[in-house]
């Protein structure tokens, strides 16, 4: 079942995992804003580097590297397009500032990917669901979200079972052209859908039996409370934003080329 391992989640405790997801989300937005404000390589590199301690504290470096590797193709694309456009518009020659500029645009993209991946790698679905419940989002949405997460591994396992059963009865999934292959999946999809419908009816029955919709004023077993770490993160966010605005307005930013 290794294919589906990625769909499962586990409660992990680390200083970063334990942070309030709402504050972490504000942090993503702050990095986002800073990355948009700067267009020079040096501040963007700094934005990239200051996030690495988070990754290390959360001990998700392996998954984090994987997500960066996933973004590598798009990053290369951005770099090449940027270099090419300046090449054609500035009289057919490469200049150091042009290349640096292209690198900065690429870095901006990488910083955005990095901050999103830190958020999603360190926020467990139940924490996210709780944040949804505690914000103004209607409870039904939060419930739909957590229930979907809950049933993804169940359905994935069921799909595997059905595929195995159909293969045992002679179904060849990997045969034929693309259209034939899509058609091959019909005997897998139909039982899967039928079973999902039956499952949802049973779920609805169980929810009704446990007083779903009894009152508009629902309460919650858990409460999101701000801890020391959350206040520290708020301070970091404010620091990043102030530094960003100050540097952008008053500090001349050197280019790497100017060092040589």
């Amino acid at each position, binding site marked *: 079942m290794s294919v589906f391992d990625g769909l*499962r*989640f*586990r*409660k992990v405790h680390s200083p970063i995992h334990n942070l309030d997801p709402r504050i972490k989300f504000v942090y993503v937005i702050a990095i986002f804003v800073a990355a948009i404000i700067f267009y020079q390589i040096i501040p963007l590199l700094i934005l990239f580097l200051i996030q690495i301690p988070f990754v290390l504290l959360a001990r998700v470096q392996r998954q984090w590297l994987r997500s960066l590797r996933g973004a590598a193709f798009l990053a290369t694309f951005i770099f090449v397009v940027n270099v090419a456009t300046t090449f054609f518009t500035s009289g057919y020659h490469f200049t150091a500032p042009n290349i640096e500029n292209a690198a900065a645009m690429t870095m901006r993209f990488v910083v955005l990917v990095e901050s999103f991946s830190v958020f999603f790698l360190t926020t*467990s*679905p*139940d924490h996210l*669901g709780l944040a949804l419940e505690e914000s103004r989002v209607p409870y039904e949405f939060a*419930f739909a979200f*957590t*229930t979907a*997460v*809950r049933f993804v*591994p*169940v359905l994935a396992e069921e799909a595997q079972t059905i595929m195995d059963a159909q293969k045992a009865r002679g179904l060849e999934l990997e045969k034929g052209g693309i259209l034939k292959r899509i058609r091959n999946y019909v005997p897998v999809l139909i039982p899967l859908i039928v079973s999902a419908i039956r*499952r949802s009816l*049973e*779920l*609805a*029955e*169980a*929810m*009704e*039996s*446990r*007083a*779903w*919709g*009894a*009152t508009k*004023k*629902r*309460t*919650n*077993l*858990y*409460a999101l409370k701000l801890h020391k770490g959350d206040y520290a993160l708020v301070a970091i966010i404010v620091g990043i934003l102030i530094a960003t605005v100050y540097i952008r307005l008053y500090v001349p930013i050197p280019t790497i080329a100017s060092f040589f």
Partner: protein
Amino acid sequence: MAIIETKNLTYTYPGATKPSIVDVSIKVEKGEFVLITGPSGCGKTTLCRTFNGLVPHFYQGELKGEITVAGIDTLKHHTYEMAKHVGLVFQNPENQLFALSIEKDVAFGLENVGVPREEMRRKVDWALNQTGIYDIRERSPHEISGGQQQRVAIASVLAMEPEVIVLDEPTSFLDPLSAEKIFEVIYKLNKEQGITVILVEHRLDLTAKYSNHLIVMDHGAVRLEGDPRKILASEETRLIGVGIPKATLLYQMLKKEGLNLGDQTPLSSEELADQLLEALKPRD
């Protein structure tokens, strides 16, 4: 006063041509351990659904007759109002757990009725302890076994502190050992907390000894009702196709051959063993 009383209850699912339960009149007293059995398709699940108003509120269809549960007319009250009085545990443990942690699932009903957090914490912990799953409360449902999942389902209705718990074939997805553990948990709740239990089961071998009220259904109707020892010893029960405990069968065979082990029909191997030991004891 009876905790559950039905009078001439007849129910037809929407679009069905014939009723799934026919003229059911039963009476369950507070604190009883009721066992409902009968061949599949005979209407056991449908009858369970009437106890908290899923039938007819959720399933629609046509319900005739009278039913009161915990003094409430379920026809006039919604299922969410009944949830405080009657807890339903279903066959498939997987499809009754929706949360990402076990304790959150146990809290689900209490959250829905708006119980304050501290009181909720107390009730959740109590229910977790009663069912022996306190230590795994932070796990997610797919990390635990089917037997544990079913105990979570029991805990989640128990947390509401209902007067009645109805379990519809709660062990049909489980191995015999996990099943036995579930029955022990249920029996304990019945004995120690005085909760009325209604258990739908085929495995009478394991459960008959706990019950003091047996209902045998067939084709939507109640065919036999009363003392399990009397009913399981009757010829009629065997003809309906009820899985009579092996110990009871053996007792009857021996009795037919003229070997009377006592007046009480045994319901479990332990009871039969005791009677045999008693009979075989050398007399002086």
